[in-house]
């Protein structure tokens, strides 16, 4: 069974059609990278999958639960609030701009939702939180506030915060685009280390070498459609002109 299924997704902002007809599947534990030029709809696709945006038309399904599907007029209709609330516990999202809560220290950033959303005990939440911070190499920063951390450290806290809720699929929306190359490296290393957690990951990224190394599947998007998808090898060696144009300058370093 697929963990996530999106079918014939369409989304416009005003006259601008951002997603033209997108279908994709993500299996249990699968790692999927979405690459493509800026403005191709990658982030919008992620925002539709995580319900930050409502799609205009199409089907969205997590496990066997339908979140949205077309009515007879071809307009997406969303499930009731209760279903949506349940679905939200299936996935997590790591933002480009981290979006940590600045008024809470690192540990509280990671544990608060475990306590106040998942209703676990404080001691249990702190155990989970500290284990994750340890995994991120940030246990010594537990009492720090986000502004005291580097961008790379903040992003690792954001990853720990998402993992603390134990999602089955974790989305990354250009997780290193706000970071300099050095910090990018440390964050990518952490993301790679998540492989052994066996949760599915969907990563929108401009880091081509990273996408090639980590992914079970690579999706190349341009102009609101999926141009190419398959294994990293297939996609990066594709003869598709749009793909080759996009990869042009990356080709040499890959």
């Amino acid at each position: 069974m697929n963990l996530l299924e999106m079918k014939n997704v369409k989304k416009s902002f005003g006259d601008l059609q951002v997603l033209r007809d997108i279908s994709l599947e993500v299996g249990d534990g699968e790692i999927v990278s979405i690459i493509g030029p800026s403005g191709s709809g990658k982030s919008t696709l992620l925002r539709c999958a995580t319900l930050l945006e409502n799609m205009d038309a199409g089907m969205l399904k997590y496990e066997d639960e339908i979140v949205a599907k077309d009515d007879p007029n071809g307009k997406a209709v969303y499930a009731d609030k209760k279903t949506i609330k349940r679905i939200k516990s299936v996935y997590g999202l790591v933002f480009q701009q981290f979006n940590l809560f600045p008024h809470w220290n690192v540990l509280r950033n990671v544990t608060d939702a475990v306590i106040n959303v998942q209703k676990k005990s404080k001691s249990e939440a702190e155990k989970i939180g500290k284990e994750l911070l340890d995994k991120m190499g940030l246990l010594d920063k537990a009492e720090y506030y986000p502004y005291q951390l580097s961008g790379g450290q903040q992003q690792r806290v954001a990853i720990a915060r998402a993992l603390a809720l134990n999602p089955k699929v974790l989305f990354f929306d250009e997780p290193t685009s706000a970071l300099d190359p050095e910090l990018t490296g440390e964050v990518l290393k952490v993301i790679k280390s998540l492989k052994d957690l066996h949760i599915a990951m969907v990563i929108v990224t401009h880091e081509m070498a990273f996408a090639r190394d980590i992914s079970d599947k690579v999706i190349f998007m341009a102009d609101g459609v999926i141009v190419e998808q398959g294994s990293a090898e297939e996609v990066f060696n594709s003869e598709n002109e749009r793909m080759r144009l996009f990869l042009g300058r990356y080709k040499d370093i890959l």
Partner: protein
Amino acid sequence: MSISQIILELFEGLLVSVQIFAITLLFSLPLGLVVALGRMSKNSTVSGITKVYISIMRGTPLMLQLFVVYYGPYYLFNIKLNPTYRNMAVYIGFIINYAAYFAEIYRSGIQSMPVGQYEAADILGYSKVQTFFSIIMPQVIKRILPSVTNEVITLVKDTSLAFSISVMEMFTKAKALSSSQTSMTPLIVAGVFYYVFNFIVAYMMEKAEKKLDYYK
């Protein structure tokens, strides 16, 4: 009349001023938040009404508003209220006026919050109420504290407007003493009291700001 007697008399008035100040803050701060939420409501009737309300409160003199609240029930509806309504009228007048100002301060603070904070909270599964009270509001309070301080200091001085409907607060007393004693002294003493009052208020607000300085 000796200076100590003047001080004693004015001190009694000061207690009334402090009372007006405290009660106004106690009610207008939460009411302002409700008004701000109404102003930002997606319901156009609600946001329209609150917009007009804020506009009137900010666009007309507080003294006139006190008159309307105090004399309105009689002139408009022929309701006779006993004299103790005088104090109540001051409270009502001040509360509804300051709530409008605080509402605009809250609104500016809430609207300045980055959308990413809401989105992160949404993804993590917080309810709208949880998001507002545990993530948005604490940060809003830090952002708006300097503007609130301004408003609170103005309120200290505005309490003297209760004079217009003859509430026996400090300024009313100072004015009466000054006339009967044909002396500037009561007014000067009152001025010193207001200044000290505000000095304490400013000091406390500064402390509060410092306390919220633990994050950026």
